[in-house]
């Protein structure tokens, strides 16, 4: 299927479609996608860094796969995520606020979650609205839960979504990487450092 569907910041629809059902395909190894268009990974790196540097509240959402040291790779990746957060924090202006908000688990929590301390895939819009987050990156979130959340964010918020996926990537993010490793996350931090000062901050 040839698709014209662009995965853009919302609010898109009462119930936006899954991008896969609109014909969007996942990137192959060495590639990423931006708004559904397949690009080389380096181009996606640069664009993700620009999105972080031009956002008022660039935010990382690390999930259980990196929050728990269940193997050596996860621990290494967690350090890389912390490094990326510190790099973004050091690279933005005083009018911008970088955040690191964990997704510790996937439970549908009632009567409410505390949006200042967590995000979960079932209520992602609450955390995004409360903190006025306008660009975010999922990392270490199980793929099914990430896609669940990415669609809800696109449906009800104007937040720009990035997925740093350890598997095949996410069509439902506006920008996605695949086969994420600690080194890849550090490369993204390097792109943020490289572009520091060259991207206009938000007004």
């Amino acid at each position, binding site marked *: 299927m040839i698709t014209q569907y662009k995965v853009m910041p919302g609010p898109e629809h009462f*119930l936006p479609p*899954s991008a896969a059902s609109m014909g969007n395909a996942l990137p192959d190894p060495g590639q990423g996608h931006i708004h559904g268009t397949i690009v080389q990974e380096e181009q996606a790196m640069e664009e993700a860094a620009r999105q972080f540097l031009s956002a008022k509240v660039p935010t990382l959402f690390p999930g259980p796969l990196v929050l728990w040291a269940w*193997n050596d790779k996860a621990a290494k990746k967690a350090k890389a995520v912390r490094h990326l957060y510190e790099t973004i924090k050091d690279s933005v202006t005083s009018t911008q606020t970088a955040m690191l908000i964990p997704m510790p688990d996937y*439970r549908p929590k009632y009567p409410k979650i505390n949006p200042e301390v967590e995000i979960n895939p079932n209520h992602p819009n*609450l955390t995004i609205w409360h903190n006025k987050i306008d660009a975010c990156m999922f990392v270490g979130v199980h793929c*099914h839960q990430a896609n669940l959340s990415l669609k809800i964010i696109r*449906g009800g918020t104007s937040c720009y979504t990035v997925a740093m996926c350890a*598997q*095949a990537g996410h069509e439902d993010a506006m920008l996605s990487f695949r086969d994420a490793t600690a080194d890849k996350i550090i490369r993204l931090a390097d792109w943020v450092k490289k572009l520091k000062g060259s991207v206009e901050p938000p007004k």
Partner: protein
Amino acid sequence: MATQSVIGQKNNKGQAFTDPRHMMFEAPRTPSFFTGSEVIKEAVRRASCDMMVAYPITPQSEAAALCGELFAEGYIGDYFRGESEFAVMSQCAGAAFGGARVFTTTAGPGTMRAMENFPMWAGARLPIQMIVTCRGINSPLSIQPDTLEISYLMQTGMLVWHAETAQDFYDWILLGYMVSEEPDVHLPLALCCDGFFVTHTKDMVDLTPVDMCLPPYDPYRSPVPCMDMECPPVRMMRDPFVMKSNYISYATHASWQQEVWAAVERSRKHTIGWMNGLIDTENTDADIIVVASGTAVSQSREAIDILADEGISVGLVKVKTLRPWPGEEIKEATKNAKHIIVPEFNVTGWLGREVKATVPNNERVHSGPHVCGGMTMPPEIIASEIKTILGIKVETLSGRGS
């Protein structure tokens, strides 16, 4: 955990875990004369299955019992009989939640009895493989082939493939795990065939080497936690979104369902890579094209030969996967056809409906001939249907379907 490559290592039966591309496409094959049920056993022998749950009462296929022999021989990690088909499918879910590669078989009324489990499997993203050796499901009961149950499975969120021959069956059981266990897919597969015609007849099948087997399933690549009693999909059983009356709970449930069908769509890329397309085509320049699945394809080939002898050129589209639905491929293959014939082994004509919903100018689609309840479909009645559509006078054939 199984994230390290195990290719080249041996299992406790001395089989080498083999790169599936080498095993399926490069390794030498041995021609063997087997029934379809025996072929299922031989595929499972090479599939590195952790678990099989069986309900072998159905006379439709001996496969469940034959897989019991495999367990006795040490080729399957664990094996037991469930109390009923519903229990079997629930038990399969438990094993898959725990991170096992699971295999089971079913047919006919048993499939219907277990039906509640299939959307649950898909929703929980469990890559269980279920062989469906189709038979009649309605009263008066029949143990003869009839493909009506496939139409129910097509709405569950499972992958649904329809094998024509025992060779398809053998290859697709093994390839099925490769597709359904991809992390961006990770869905159950209903691998269907027409019972008796495929399961009980003997055919030549080229088998892969018995000392090679698939690499084991790696549950750590699952898109959901493989077992966590505090998190969905397990926790959803006691704290489902639908029990909370607020917008976001419903939105979560809706997004969850969309994600299951998104995963079906994602399976296209992998299925095309492993199975060389979702359809096979022959002579699609012809004005008349037969679109069929299962053994209706074999009968259609015979009919096409009969008509060729009479100077009538007819093309063929063999539909291999029903979910994902090869809509674009069928549209392309039939774009020049004046008449599209869809013969089926069921009373409702579900394949004809799907084709009608797919192609432009769908007055071209002739849904039929249909046989059901165990009737055979002689090639002559397909040829006769085509000639009738072309305005050629034909003799009445007794036993012709609707």
